[in-house]
């Protein structure tokens, strides 16, 4: 799998690629993510989505790096896709339409990072309580949690 295959099929979708320790990652234009994923699933046999997560590059901008782990059983190959989204508009199209497995993973990223997935069937918090403030895996969120002030009443 090379960036050329994707770039040839969907021009303008690949903005970079890197091979590190034998693992390939492609940087994808966020607006084209669903298109690229559908192409990889249908044409390149990446029928499994192993996971979706995010990396917070705070205070750099664009701040969030959404990472997709793809796996092709037939070719015995793994691929990472990355999308950079800025903190001002942390919105991305959901890939649940391509792989239903993305459902919980995207909910997790939404819950812990506060990145919103457009067209997600059920975008709710998954780990934290519904009424929780903040997104714990953001770098500006303290490890020990928020400080509560207790008063007499």
């Amino acid at each position, binding site marked *: 799998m090379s960036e050329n295959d994707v770039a040839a099929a969907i021009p303008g979708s690949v903005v970079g690629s890197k091979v*590190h*320790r034998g*693992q390939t*990652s492609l940087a994808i234009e966020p607006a084209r993510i669903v298109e690229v994923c559908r192409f990889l699933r249908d044409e390149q046999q990446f*029928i*499994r*989505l*192993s*996971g979706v*997560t995010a*990396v*917070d590059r705070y205070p750099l901008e664009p701040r969030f790096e959404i*990472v997709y*782990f793809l796996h092709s*059983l037939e070719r*015995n190959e*793994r691929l*990472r896709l990355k999308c950079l989204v800025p903190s001002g508009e942390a919105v991305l199209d959901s890939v649940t339409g391509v*792989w*239903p*497995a993305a*459902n*919980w993973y995207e909910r997790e990223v939404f819950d*812990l990072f506060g990145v919103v997935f457009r067209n997600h069937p059920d975008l709710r*918090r*998954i*780990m*934290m309580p519904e009424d929780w403030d903040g997104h*714990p*895996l953001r770098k500006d*969120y303290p*490890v020990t949690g928020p400080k509560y002030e207790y008063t007499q009443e």
Partner: protein
Amino acid sequence: MSEADANIAQTQASTAPRRMTLNMGPQHPSTHGVLRMVLELEGETIVKAGCDVGYLHTGIEKEFEAKLYQQAVTLTDRIDYLCPLINNLCYCLAVEKLLDLEIPPRAQWMRVMLGELTRINSHLVWLGTHSMDLGAMSVFLYCFREREQILRIFEMFSGQRMMTSYFRIGGLALEPPRGWQQAVGKFIDAFPSKVDEYEELLTKNPIWMRRTQGVGCASLDDLIAHGVTGPMLRAAGLKWDIRKSEPYSSYEKFDFEIPTRTEGDVYARYQVRVEELRQSARIVKQALDGMPEGRWVANAPHVVLPDREKMKTEMEALIYHFKIVTEGFRVPEGEVYQVVESPRGEMGYYVVSDGTARPYRVFIHGPSFGNLQGLPKMVEGRLVADAIAALGSTDFVLGDVDR
């Protein structure tokens, strides 16, 4: 409305299917942990099922970012607490790949051997609790009898029964103890006959067969699309095992089979896991017989703590020890996604390093997370009682789902 019309309306209302929403869990004996299932029922049939997870969320991924690389090993034990050593292994392999460390063969084989004992341990807990959910009490006692012996072996190696943290970055935590060959050998020679005992209780047992055959099926494509991995896919006919397809820690040197079935029901999953018990025993036996000699840690003084003896005699060793303990070791910038075959399926650690001594981000892909996502597909349209069987057959660990 006339009286006749009213009567008809009343009859229709009473015969029309009435839906009921049933909460199963978070405190329910069959959910083994704190999983909440919301079942929408029509009579005894499940129309819609959903899982509510997160009750055991402890923020382990956040905690990783605050720890030094070597300190974080102890956190990995607590994620999937039924297979701590395989969690250790996956994390260590990821960091070792980032460091580009060469692990000596003895440590690699030791990791394979103890990893397979962990798999046996985990499958035994599964078999015991799953069969107890379906009413076969004695299997539980049989399984825990052997599990106890495995825990004793772990205690012998690491000093701990469950949270072993025995695999460290660069090799093993301690030199293998004196007499370990006899302890493992004694256990593994007797183990195949114990598996026969479990099979005698279950495999041809008519109650067991009726409760499990044809239950919890879903098509292979559906399972893959929903993120299910491991024995569940093998029971549905996919011959895929990461130990074979992407070998790590010298698994390519071992001879074992990947058991598969095609039925994809709860019974097939049981058969696959029981066969895996036998295959794991084979691997342990091979590792025991062919264990290479040599060091159990890599030759990397900046990563691995020095011997106590050397520390007392060599200045350099003392300095390295001081530096590793106080400020850790720096890991080159980069990122690695390492996968291993855990008893439940594909376990992956995504470690991102920014060049400092603490991980910038660690994402843990737990197999149970994906397996639970596929659960509604297996229970919808079936009876409530079958949900218990299907739930048990996914073999989830909530620590692994919620992290």
